[in-house]
C-alpha cells in the first residue's frame, strides 16, 4: 500500500543521494585503494536504490520507472534523510558520515531481512552484507584518522562534528513509519538507535574521538524539506536526463 511505498522511497532516496555524493570522489581519493573503496560503496548503494525505486513505482500505482523517479522528481519530492545530501567535505568528513550512516544501515537491513514486504526482505538480505563491509571500512578509517596524526584527528573530529547532528533524523518516527512498524514492514527505530549508539561509541573510543554533545537535531528530509545542498546535487544529477525528455539511454 501507500505506506510501504512511502517507506521504500525513503530507503531508496537515502541510497541514491549518498551514492551520488560518493560518486563525486571519482579519481579524487587519497589512494587508489580508496578510489576503489569509495566507488564500491557508492555502487552498492546505487544498486540498492535501483531495486527499491523500481519497487516504489509498482507499489504506488504510478508505474514510474527507476529513472523517472530519480531524474524527474523535484527537490521537495525527495525523502532522503538530510545526512545523505550533506557535501562530501574532505576525506575525514566523508568517512565520518559513512560511519554514522552504515552503523544505522547494518542493524536496519539485518532487521529488514524479516520484513513482511518481500522486496524489502530480499533487498535487505543482499544489502546487509554490503553495508557491513561499508561499516568496517568507514570504522577502520575513522580509527586510523582519529588515532593518526594531530592534523588527521582534528580533521576527522571536525567532519564528525559537522555531520553528527543530522544522524538523529535517521531514528525519527512518524505516522508512516509507525504503521509500517505495526505491519512488520519496517523495524522499530528505538532498538536501532541503541545498536547505533553502541557501534558508534566503540569506534569513537578506539579512534580517541569525542562524541559530539550537541542537542541540535535538524530534520525534515522525510517530508521533503532539505538543506540547501540538495538542489545543487539534483541539478547536476538530473540535467542531462531533463535535457532530453523521453529519450532512452
Amino acid at each position, binding site marked *: 500500500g501507500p505506506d510501504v511505498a512511502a517507506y521504500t522511497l525513503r530507503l531508496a532516496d537515502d541510497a541514491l543521494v549518498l551514492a551520488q555524493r560518493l*560518486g563525486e570522489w571519482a579519481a579524487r581519493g587519497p589512494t587508489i585503494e580508496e578510489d576503489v573503496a569509495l566507488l564500491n560503496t557508492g555502487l552498492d548503494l546505487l544498486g540498492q536504490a535501483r531495486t527499491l525505486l523500481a519497487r516504489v513505482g509498482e507499489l504506488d500505482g504510478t508505474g514510474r520507472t527507476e529513472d523517472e523517479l530519480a531524474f524527474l522528481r523535484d527537490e521537495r519530492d525527495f525523502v532522503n534523510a538530510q545526512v545523505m545530501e550533506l557535501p562530501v567535505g574532505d576525506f575525514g568528513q566523508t568517512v565520518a558520515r559513512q560511519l554514522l550512516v552504515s552503523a544505522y544501515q547494518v542493524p536496519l537491513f539485518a532487521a529488514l531481512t524479516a520484513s513482511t514486504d518481500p522486496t524489502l526482505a530480499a533487498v535487505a538480505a543482499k544489502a546487509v552484507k554490503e553495508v557491513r563491509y561499508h561499516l568496517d571500512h568507514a570504522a577502520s578509517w575513522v580509527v586510523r584518522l582519529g588515532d593518526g596524526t594531530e592534523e588527521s584527528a582534528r580533521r576527522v573530529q571536525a567532519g564528525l562534528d559537522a555531520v553528527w547532528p543530522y544522524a538523529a533524523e535517521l531514528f525519527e518516527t512518524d505516522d508512516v513509519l509507525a504503521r509500517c512498524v505495526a505491519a512488520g514492514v519496517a523495524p522499530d527505530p528505538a532498538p536501532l538507535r541503541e545498536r547505533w549508539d553502541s557501534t558508534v561509541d566503540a569506534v569513537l573510543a578506539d579512534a580517541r574521538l569525542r562524541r559530539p554533545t550537541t542537542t541540535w537535531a535538524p530534520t525534515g528530509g522525510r517530508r521533503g524539506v532539505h538543506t540547501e545542498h540538495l538542489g545543487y546535487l539534483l541539478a547536476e544529477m538530473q540535467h542531462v536526463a531533463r535535457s532530453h525528455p523521453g529519450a532512452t539511454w
Partner: protein
Amino acid sequence: AEQQAAFDAVVADDGRVEPRDAMPEAYRRTLVRQIAQHAHSEIIGMQPEGNWVTRAPSLRRKAILYAKVQDEAGHGLYLYSAAETLGVDRADLLDALHEGRQKYSTIFNYPALTWADTMAIGWLVDGAAIMNQVPLSRCSYGPYARAMVRVCKEESFHQRQGFEGMTALARGTAAQKAMAQDALDRFWWPSLMMFGPPDDASPNSARSMAWGIKRFSNDELRQRFVDATVPQAEFLGLTVPDPDLVLDEETGHYRFGTPDWDEFARVVAGDGPCNRQRVAFRRQAHEDGAWVREAAAAHAARRAGARTA
C-alpha cells in the same frame, strides 16, 4: 653473459621472464616506463569518465559507468604492482606522473564534453586499448602479461558496454544521434593516434619486438582497429570522419587517411586541450590526500609499536 644468454633463450622460446630472473637493464627500464605509463593511463583515464558519474542520464548507465571507473582504479593497482616487481615504488612512479617525467595515453587529454563522449570512450578508446593490450597478455614479462589478462577481460566488457551505449544513442532521438556523431567526429582521430606514431617514426619498436614486449607494429594494430571499428560505425549509422576511408576489396582491409601527427606531437609534448587539467587534478587529489596517507602510516606504526611492546 651467461645471464644474457638465459634471458635471450627465454625470450626466443616465447617463455616468461619472472621478477627474480636476470634481465638486461635496458629491458627492465623499458618495461618500467611502459608499465608505469600504462598504469598512469588507467588513473588519469578515470577523470574524463569520472566527470560523468554524477551526470549519467539513467541509473543503469550510472551503475555501469561507476563500475567502469572503479575497474580502472583496479587496473591501476594491478599495473603499479606489476611495475613494483621490477624494483620501483608506486609513490615514485606517481611523483614522476605528477612532475611530468612520465606520460600517459594522449587520448585522455581530450575532454569528455557530452554523455556521448563517455560512450565513445568506451567504444573507441577501450576498443583501441584492447587491440594494444591483448598481445601484451603474451608479452615476455610474466607479471605484466598476467595483469593484462585480467585487464583485457574487463576492458572488453567496457568496450561492449560503450558500443551498446552508442547504439542506444544512434537509435535514439535526433539530438542523441547528433551527439553520437559529434563524439565520433572528435574521438576518431585521437583514437587512431593511441597506437603511437607510424612505424617509420617509432625507433624503439624494433627493440621492444625483439624483447617480446611488443608483438605487432603500431601500424599493424592501427589497421586492425580500423578494420574492426568501421563496420561497427556503419552498424550504428554513423559516419567516420575520414574522406579517404575506403574498403580495399582485394586485401579486405580499409585504407584510411593520415592522422594529424603534428597534433599528436603537440599533445604528447603537453599542449593538448586537457594535459594541464589532468595533471593538476591528479596532483590536487594527491596533495589533498597527503594528510590521510600520513595518518594511516602514523597509525600503523603506532599499532605495530603497541604489538611489539
